[in-house]
């Protein structure tokens, strides 16, 4: 069995993203199950020195790609590799365009594809992979049996389990591949968005529709400043334009795990809950005592938040 991990992250740095994926497949017991893991590295860089990378057998370096992020180049490289090695699984670990790369590669190969799975298992008896991913907007987990081969990715989270260190030095192969495309006539301008700082914040305040207005959010920003918290919102709040798009929390936004997560006027729909559930402490303020959020909070306060947040802010 063979797994191909495809990445454009710089593998020379101790890389969180790649390690996080490797840790999520370490439960497949590559050694005992005779799974070979190849890393496809797509970059402009020419030559790298030997590195240690746990569990990886071979690193295939596609190093003459002018535009490594270009989706059609990523697919071409994957197909090139596929023609030689035909891996059972492609696992994608890309900076951008992951959500386009995965289904499009799978469609080209007529195999299954899964975005943002939670975990993967290998069934020794059937010799098949089992994929677990959220369904029903995250209210339920779906257990899929991969019928043949698949392309997939894991959810990106901040926390990751530890790798077993065995100081493995994979073989490096350079692939002479020059059939790359340069971008067509699209004109792309990039607007750098001020990072929201949400991922690294120790204290996050999630505002929901229940805060009532954009103006109230401004007042809550003052409060957030006074307690050193970062402010973000639910989908309803983003839809209304009360907070910028890069502050959305949830399965379609960011998944966070701060020391404290304070929710204000948030009902606790599953896609939102899945974004905050890994917080060390959840405090919920909601005026409805039956709100779903209270089932998942460590501390709850039932009432109008304006009576609860320190008065000077309102």
């Amino acid at each position, binding site marked *: 069995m063979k797994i191909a991990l495809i990445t454009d992250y710089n593998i020379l740095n101790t890389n969180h993203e790649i390690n996080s994926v490797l840790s999520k497949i370490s439960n497949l017991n590559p050694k005992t199950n005779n799974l070979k893991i190849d890393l496809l590295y797509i970059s402009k860089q020419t030559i790298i020195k030997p590195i240690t990378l746990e569990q990886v057998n071979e690193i295939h370096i596609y190093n003459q790609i002018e535009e490594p992020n270009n989706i059609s180049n990523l697919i071409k490289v994957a197909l090139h590799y596929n023609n030689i090695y035909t891996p059972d699984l492609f696992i994608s670990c890309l*900076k951008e365009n992951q*959500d*386009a790369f*995965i*289904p*499009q590669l*799978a*469609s*080209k190969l007529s195999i*299954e*594809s899964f*975005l943002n799975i939670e975990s993967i298992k290998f069934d020794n008896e059937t010799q098949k992979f*089992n994929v677990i*991913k959220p*369904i*029903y*907007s*995250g*209210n*339920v*987990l*779906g*257990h*899929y049996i991969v*019928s*043949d081969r698949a392309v997939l990715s894991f959810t990106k989270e901040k926390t990751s389990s530890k790798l077993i260190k065995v100081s493995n030095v994979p073989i490096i192969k350079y692939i002479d591949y020059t059939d790359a495309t340069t971008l067509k*006539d*699209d*004109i*792309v301008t*990039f*607007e*750098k*968005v001020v990072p929201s700082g949400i991922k690294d914040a120790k*204290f996050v305040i999630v505002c929901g529709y229940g805060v009532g207005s954009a103006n109230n959010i401004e007042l809550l920003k003052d409060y957030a400043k006074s*307690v050193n918290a970062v402010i973000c919102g639910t*989908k309803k709040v983003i*839809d*209304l*334009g009360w907070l910028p*798009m*890069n502050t959305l929390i949830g*399965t*379609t936004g960011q998944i966070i795990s701060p*020391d*404290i997560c*304070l929710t204000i006027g948030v009902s606790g729909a599953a896609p939102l809950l899945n974004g905050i*559930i890994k917080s*060390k*402490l*959840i405090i919920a303020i909601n005026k409805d005592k039956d709100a*779903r959020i*209270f*089932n*998942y909070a*460590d*501390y709850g*306060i039932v009432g109008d938040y304006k009576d609860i*947040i*320190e008065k000077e802010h309102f």
Partner: protein
Amino acid sequence: MKIISCIKQVYDLDIVLENDWVVDETTNKINIDYANLIMNPYDETALELMLRITDSSKDIKTEVITIGNKKSEAILRKALAIGVDDATRIEIDHELINNPFNIAKLLHHKIKDDKEVKLVLCGRQSDIFNHGQTGQILAEKLGWSCFTNVFNITYKDSYFNVSRTTSSGIEHIKTNNPLVVTVTQSPNMFLRMATLMNTMKAKQKPINFISKELSEISEDTNEKFYNLEKLTVEKSKKNCIYLNENKNKSINLQLSDLINNSLNKGVK
């Protein structure tokens, strides 16, 4: 020129009660049939984006397509009532639409020969299976370019201007057509309302229909795909401790103490 929006009727999962998320052992399903049927929220955003393009370019034709049973015509009528020109329903056995490949295949079959179509919009994701891949696969099958996570799109001088979020920021792309976009949340892009008169009129409008037989999906190809073996509900419910107003300590003091203590201790 023509623009197509692909829309889906879904259950409003927000109103499903906590305790109803249980798997029925015999059917291996979850019974949420009491929930309202609505248009998938991301498809609503996509539909509104489409209508805003035609607000300024009247000569562009618009169409909505849905895959589903007779009931799902409700969302098509809604679209007709707010100004969409044509509506098409593709019928298929419910079991066969559990994966994005089959959906994309059906849409591809419908769209591929229509040379007028220059843009197809899909919501980025819908309820139940949450694969989030239909638009991308459709683009691959059509051989068109594809942009995901689009929150705005406009049309000018035969180019589309697409704005989309990426993991590092926002991209504005001036692009040729044809293309497929998948639409994410977008500020102030709520679907417009229909007037009562237009709602009445929409009831009389014809809806194009593509039957099962014509939709070109055979059962055996489906069997190989997406074997959902079982569902589980794994909840990490907590025992919430409620803070109450009391004489000795006001509620806001209790809250700030809780916050300060937790931050100092590095939590539990």
